[in-house]
């Protein structure tokens, strides 16, 4: 399955002044799969996400989306392609209700009047499609929701727009055990619905629980991108902290992307 990646990055470079944050980074995200992006603080995960979502322009490198080379210069370009980012600090407004938040900035209108019934219906359908049943009323303010419910709303907001690629930045960082399980289940469901999902996480348990592939960044370099089933917990930690682990990573020096993608497709078939 999923022989061609939905999004493929090649040779991405990014510097802030004299500091080179990303060096020759390659990353592939496949439809129907969760790609976990791991790395230590400062490894460049957030910068990479901001490059994909058009907040930062890249210095060099190419984007291939759905087989077509594309350029992403602004968040609008990314949104037009179907790339949505769910940020760590939940971009939700406490004083608005769930429907209002999900459509914020992209309200449905009849002339100049807001079309509330249509928005409420679409929000309800989206939440139902994600099998979300924990929300009592779509008209309750976001401030009255639990952390897990808020994260659910933020994710539902991202998939509302027929997006193809959803990037989640530490979606479980601030959540308790039960709520983390809830959100991870939702992440898995997104992929099962055919979306390409990129999950940024520090939590190895989360990564191994839901991801199909793991991409490890080390000091701005992509040291490995492998199938989750082909790697152990300890190896990932080594990749994150030292940039290499046995045959994987910097020492192998065979190009980061080549390592995992080709053999893994033959060894493991359908994950979901």
């Amino acid at each position: 399955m999923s022989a061609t990646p939905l999004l493929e990055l090649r040779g991405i470079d990014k510097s802030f002044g004299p500091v080179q944050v990303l060096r020759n980074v390659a990353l592939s995200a496949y439809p129907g799969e969760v790609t976990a992006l791991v790395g230590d603080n400062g490894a460049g995960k957030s910068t990479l996400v901001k490059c994909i979502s058009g907040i930062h322009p890249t210095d060099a490198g190419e984007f291939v989306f759905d087989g077509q080379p594309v350029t992403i210069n602004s968040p609008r370009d990314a949104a037009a392609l179907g790339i949505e980012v769910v940020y760590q600090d939940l971009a939700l407004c406490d004083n608005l209700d769930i429907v209002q938040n999900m459509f914020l900035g992209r309200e449905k209108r009849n002339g100049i009047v807001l079309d509330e019934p249509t928005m409420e219906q679409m929000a309800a359908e989206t939440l139902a499609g994600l099998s979300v049943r924990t929300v009592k009323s779509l008209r309750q303010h976001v401030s009255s929701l639990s952390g897990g419910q808020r994260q659910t709303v933020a994710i539902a907001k991202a998939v509302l727009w027929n997006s193809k690629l959803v990037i989640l930045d530490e979606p479980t960082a601030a959540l308790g055990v039960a709520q983390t399980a809830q959100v991870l289940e939702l992440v898995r469901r997104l992929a099962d619905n055919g979306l390409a999902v990129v999950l940024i996480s520090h939590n190895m348990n989360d990564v191994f629980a839901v991801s199909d592939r793991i991409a490890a960044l080390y000091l701005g370099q992509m040291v490995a991108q492998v199938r989750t089933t082909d790697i152990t917990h300890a190896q990932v930690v080594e990749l994150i902290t030292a940039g290499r682990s046995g045959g994987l990573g910097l020492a192998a020096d065979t190009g980061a992307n080549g390592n995992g993608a080709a053999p893994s497709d033959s060894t493991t078939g359908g994950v979901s």
Partner: protein
Amino acid sequence: MSTTAVTQEGPAAVAPAPTVGTHVRDYWRRVRGGDIGALPAVAGLLVLCTIFSIMRPSFLTAGNFANLFTQGAAVTLIAMGLVFVLLLGEIDLSAGFASGVCAAVLANVVTVLGYPWYVAVLAAVFTGLVIGTALGFLVAKVGIPSFVVTLAGFLAFQGVVLLLMEEGRNISVRDPVLVAIANRNLPTALGWALAGFAVAGFAAVQLLRYRKRAARGLINDPLAVVLGRIGVLALVLGLAVYVLNLERSRNVLITSLKGVPIVVPIIAVLLVVWTFVLKRTSYGRHIYAVGGNKEAARRAGINVDRIRISVFVICSTMAAIGGIVAASRANSVDPNTGGSNVLLYAVGAAVIGGTSLFGGKGRVLDAVLGGAVVAVIDNGMGLMGYSSGVKYVVTGVVLLLAASVDALSRRRASATGNR
């Protein structure tokens, strides 16, 4: 407490339709959770009116009732504009003297230069637009805190009024149309017609929305509540128009004085227009969003700077309209128009009505309810013969009370996870 279903499955939700009982219980739970809205203003209004009517029977006359509207009109109009600024968590301290500047422009154009009234009104409103744009630009683009920008405006505009008045001269406004705004009344029949039109319009909007939502299977307020709202509006409007249409002239032989003051429909129309803008357009939605979480709004693709500038423009423009009404009521403009207590009364009106000083929460109706409270205090204490010293102290205390209610309900709201 929660009798509504815990789950909701799609648009064809089988959650039990809310009844009047659950509706009332939900409302009570929101109030207890800190979402008290305009409750203090309405309660305060009832208490104050009761006290003043007992202490001074002249408070409860048709003549005084009409006075309340003309006395409170300018402050209410300024407060309506301030609601927009407060919704972003900003403040406009210059709104009072901005209204003074606009009134001075009006008086100069109509009296000194001798242009017709509509040119003067346009000039005053345009002045408000320019002031608002300048303030908004300094706050949003230059990045000066609104408190400082508008405090500077407060001082500077005071000076501008003096300059326009050529060092303290008083310019009278004699144009009959301008004088009529705050001093003349509608014919009684027109008053009834407008009230009927308002109720019919409100009923149509409410029932249409009910039907549309019901047709889509969305959860609706119970029909009894919807009808109740229409009934309350009809009752309040009907009673007000009836009282205002009573003869209130001391001597009918000299002159007849009855009808709804012309300024009332002006306020009503602006109330409807701004409420529509805030609640039913995406622009209004974006104002709430920026007030609630600026960063979230930015990430949602909302042009935050444009929203911030626009609220200052709305505020100063409403201040201009308030200034026109003040000039009309006084038949003149002097260097103190829009000065002294006008600004604090306006801020007080908005906050007493339930608009939060912390941003993100408030309605235009709040300004009208709060404006009524301020007008009643001012009027009632005047009737009881208190000096303006006492009036200032009491109004200040009421403003503080309203702000504490706001702060405390906010704390309670964050404690109960409600808002």
